[in-house]
């Protein structure tokens, strides 16, 4: 029976991840990327793959370590702590969850390529300013044995560099998921200048040809394979956000202890103490929802919606509180680009929107709890 405590293996994984990231991918690394006009560092991702993290959800026979979603969340948490810019969620969580459900040799070799870092994926799903997969209008018209895709996607996270795109489109018989190489004729990618300095793209599809082989799962039945992958992604993103909140909080707590004002450390002022303690409580409560989502995805993945939406909703409100308190408690210095807190605030905003915002997930909870 699994409990809401890290197993020894998980704790070891999380500890080693923290050690690596503090060294190889501190916030400074994201700043350097941004200042050099890049959003992604392939060398970092290669090192991460070499450590096996990209295979955390991949079966051993496909080159993975198969530790499950709770463990994936712990890696995401650590990456959130230092704002490491990697395609972990897009490739190692979302794409892998889809491929694993599909099974077969092709999926197996694709997973092996993800585990080794050879292939990266991005999920092209949003078409407007809000996450709403069911409202997808991008068309995939039947043409002979294949399809012709036309339409525009936006906020495709990691879409600027990914080798392959997972594209949700609407056929006559309903929503269908395609896997396309990102250099296929008719696909145009435009980088978005994102506030979190991470990669995202608008992608235009102009009469892009797809064969039956490009379809993942059944035509007209995308959600059967996509839903579990979205939930895996949402849970991992929630975990990343909980790490972000923890990172911002640690920085703030350090500042409260060190910064003096009116002759005292500002952390000795009771009002700030109470606010810091309240924030810590929120972070602790969210941590429970995150770990629970991982456990449920591992144990009972077809009944995970409540646990996952709970985690994403809580992670969103907690991360936003953490960065708002972080900036405010730092005062002027927290507003400067020179200081790292702003990176946390901007990433928190982007993660709040990705894969469904607070309102979206709150409605999922409400529906499942009959409110």
């Amino acid at each position: 029976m699994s409990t809401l405590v890290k197993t020894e293996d998980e704790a070891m994984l999380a500890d080693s991840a923290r050690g690596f990231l503090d060294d190889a991918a501190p916030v400074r690394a994201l700043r350097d990327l941004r200042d050099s006009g890049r959003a992604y560092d392939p060398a970092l991702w290669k090192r991460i793959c070499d450590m096996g993290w990209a295979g955390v959800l991949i079966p051993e026979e496909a080159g993975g370590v198969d530790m499950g979603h709770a463990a994936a969340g712990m890696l995401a948490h650590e990456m959130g702590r230092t704002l490491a810019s990697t395609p972990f969620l897009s490739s190692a969580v979302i794409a892998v969850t889809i491929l694993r459900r599909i099974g077969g040799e092709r999926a197996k070799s694709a997973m092996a390529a993800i585990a080794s870092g050879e292939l990266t994926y991005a999920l092209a799903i949003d078409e407007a300013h809000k996450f709403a997969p069911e409202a997808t209008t991008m068309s995939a018209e039947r043409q002979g044995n294949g399809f012709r895709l036309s339409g525009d996607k936006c906020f495709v996270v990691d879409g600027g560099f990914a080798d392959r795109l997972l594209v949700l489109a609407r056929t006559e018989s309903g929503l269908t998921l395609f896997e396309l190489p990102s250099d296929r004729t008719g696909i145009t990618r435009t980088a978005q200048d994102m506030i979190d300095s991470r990669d995202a793209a608008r992608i235009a599809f102009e009469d892009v040809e797809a064969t039956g082989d490009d379809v993942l799962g059944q035509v007209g039945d995308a959600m059967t394979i996509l839903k579990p992958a979205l939930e895996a992604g949402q849970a991992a993103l929630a975990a990343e956000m909980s790490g972000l909140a923890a990172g911002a909080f640690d920085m703030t707590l350090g500042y409260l202890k060190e910064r003096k004002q009116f002759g005292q450390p500002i952390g000795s002022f009771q009002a700030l103490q109470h606010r810091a303690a309240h924030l810590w409580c929120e972070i602790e409560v969210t941590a429970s929802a995150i770990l629970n989502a991982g456990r449920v995805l591992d144990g009972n993945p077809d009944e995970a919606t409540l646990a996952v939406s709970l985690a994403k909703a809580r992670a969103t409100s907690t991360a936003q509180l953490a960065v708002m308190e972080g900036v405010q408690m730092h005062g002027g210095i927290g507003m400067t680009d020179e200081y790292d807190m702003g990176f946390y605030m901007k990433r928190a905003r982007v993660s709040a929107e990705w894969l469904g915002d607070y309102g979206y997930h709150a409605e999922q909870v409400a529906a499942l709890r009959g409110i």
Partner: protein
Amino acid sequence: MQGEDSLKAFRAEMRSWLEENCPQQMRDGRITDDAICWGGKNWTFSSESQRLWLERASARGLTVPRWPTEYGGAGLSRAEEKVFLEEMERINARPPLKSFGISMLGPALLQFGTPEQNRHYLPQIARGEIRWCQGYSEPGAGSDLASVQTRGEDKGDHWLVNGQKIWTSYADKADWIFALVRTDRDVPKHKGISFLLIDMGDPGVTTRPIRLISGASPFCETFFDNVKVPKGQIVGEENRGWDVAKYLLTHEREMISSGGTGLSGGRALGAVMAQMAGEPSAQDPTLRAAAIRCEVDALATGLTIERYKDMAEAGKGVGNASAMLKYMGTELNKRRHELIMSACGSDALEWDGPVGNRAADWLRTKANSIEGGTSEVMLTILARRVLGLPGS
């Protein structure tokens, strides 16, 4: 960790035991004060079902599932207890017995009591024969619990106790009290305190109920006037009572925090709202949005209680962090009852109106964030002792 198979078997066992032993009338899920069996010498069962349910559950050790069998418990593991509670929840069973003996004194005795004390007191608690109350707070002390003025003079074989306690829950109905008494006045205030067990029937003990804003009087003032307390009735060492009190406060925090939260514990606010008020979603979007947010937070808080229990089971002490459970749980409960009042509208503005005594329940929750340490004290504990922020 226990194997899935053995737990499955245990679940089947509990399910059939409950099926056979839990009276139908006790399956209405009611956990309000008036539905609960508190036990004690003067207890009047509200029904034969209530009596039967206590008798059967305590015979099987299930009033205190995790206590050792020799002390009247069922000796269950944490995982088994979870299963038992899930099965209780499944049939909407009332708890067979609730008491401060179970939730507070018991854990303290298991930690600090002598084997003789445990053999004497614990089984009586498990069977609901003795009802206990808690004597910590004193008039004027407020959050400063260690400023104990009630005094115990050493008279050789006994202490002579004089003084006054306040906020003693149900002292007027209790048989015994566990109380903090100052037994040494010449040392710093946390030092000279002892933890004594006192028979409320002893000469010199009197109580006076305090009427609350809800109209109810769950608390009393309790007076000690030359009460003789035999030396054997101390828990832990003389003048080290603060250790016992602190340990027990942690338990109290967890108990207060867990009132009706959790994925599996308690009914969802949404369900209560719908039942009380028709379809609030259609009628008041603002209320509905607040209810959803409360539900999200309640579910996550419930999981946190589970997680902390799991951590304790795994030997990872949570220590002062339990102040978080107390703070978050009680603030949440206040929010929940504000929303229930809103959902019920004017129906809840009468004492004992068409939706029951919702107002009394609501007003009662306002004490949650005061009793057992205020929210402010909890936040200060967390800031200083968990986050390591400096004193001013």
